[in-house]
């Protein structure tokens, strides 16, 4: 029998409480319990970055954190950050530069890119590549993604 625990967290500004199994990952919790399916599940071992979400202001792998560990935390997902307008410039630049094809990696890319710009508003291309090194894209070859982020960093987004 799974041990279940009451878990209360703030997701995109809304307080939620659920009784969940200890083994449930944060990203599965967001997708299956809250229907926030913008965070994607790719490799499930921390390599691909598709499940990137923000916990207490810092990006983390949603597949490498248990949902019960987010008890008392503030979690932000692509849905919340889109609605708040925080990602607006990046989203427009991704669109303008064709920085996505299938879109599977895009939510994680946007969160990683925004995290970079938060810590370093004027990154060069190498720094952009280094910061995105944990987010895989299998369609674009990264060039357009780096272009889009550079555009926002240069104030053109």
């Amino acid at each position, binding site marked *: *029998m*799974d*041990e279940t*625990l009451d878990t209360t967290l703030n997701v995109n500004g809304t307080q939620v409480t659920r009784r969940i*199994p*200890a*083994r449930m*990952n944060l990203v*599965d919790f967001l997708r299956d319990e809250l229907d926030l399916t913008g965070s994607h599940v790719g490799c*499930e*071992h*921390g390599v691909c*970055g598709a499940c*990137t979400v923000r916990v207490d202001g*810092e*990006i*983390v*792998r949603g*597949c*490498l*954190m*248990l949902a*019960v*560990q987010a008890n008392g935390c503030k979690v932000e997902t692509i849905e919340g950050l889109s609605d708040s307008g925080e990602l607006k410039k990046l989203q427009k630049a991704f669109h303008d530069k064709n920085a996505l094809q299938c879109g599977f990696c895009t939510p994680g890319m946007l969160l*990683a890119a925004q*995290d*970079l710009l938060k810590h370093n508003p004027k990154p060069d291309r190498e720094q952009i*590549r*280094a*910061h995105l*090194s*944990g*987010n895989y894209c299998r369609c674009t070859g990264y060039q357009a993604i780096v272009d889009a982020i550079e555009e926002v960093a240069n104030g053109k987004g």
Partner: protein
Amino acid sequence: MKAASFAYAKPRALAEALELLARPGAKVLAGGQSLIPSLNMRLSAPELLVDITGLEELKGIRLDKDTVRIGALTTHAEVERSEVVKKHLPLLAEAVPHIAHPAIRNRGTMGGSLALADPAAEYPACVLALDATLVATGKKGERRIKAADFFTGLFETALKEGELLTAIEIKAQKQGEKSAFLELARRHGDYAIVGLAAFAANGTKRLAYFGAADRAVLAPNAAKAKDLESAKAALEKDLQPPADLYHASQTKLHLAKVLLERAWTRL
């Protein structure tokens, strides 16, 4: 894949954590950046996860006279941003950006990485090169273990059953002492093909390699050599790297020499 089921406890005090860890099938959960993948892939199936991330006394970095004390739960990101580390432990500051990726550095902890003792990880080589002391706490109290005695084999350490790694103590780098950290990986953030953490003080060197054996290892013969060419030759006595999926033993040894050459002028 999804993890098999387990029980979960989050102690608020160290003593409580040590009690919980004494239970059969209990395992420590720190940052979880290596443990949770292994749970997801069902390579590990603990009965109880003891989440120690609520233990405030295991967090933070402070300079205490000539020693930097880093709490085991300090995340890679905190080490990376620490002014104390930048100023007093430049080797560590140089190493951290090589560890995985930003989202992983936000959760992964220094103590977790050392206690796991992955042979291709950065921190074990750093603590060897810096001759650090690792503080283990058990029910009977604290025990100090020299880094050179800590790594005992592949994912094996000197930590005893029920003991928790609680802190890392490292002498602050003094004027005139030098260090260099170099790593070769196919992509930024991947596990190292081979890497070198090097430290030099008063004419003596400590060269610690990772990704070159079943654990992080010192290269004492190369460290004693007077010039680069003899150091590279001596490295063949120090290292017999096991091949991995992509690199033959000879390739790794060659690359270990390349790193030695790159580090040499900085030491």
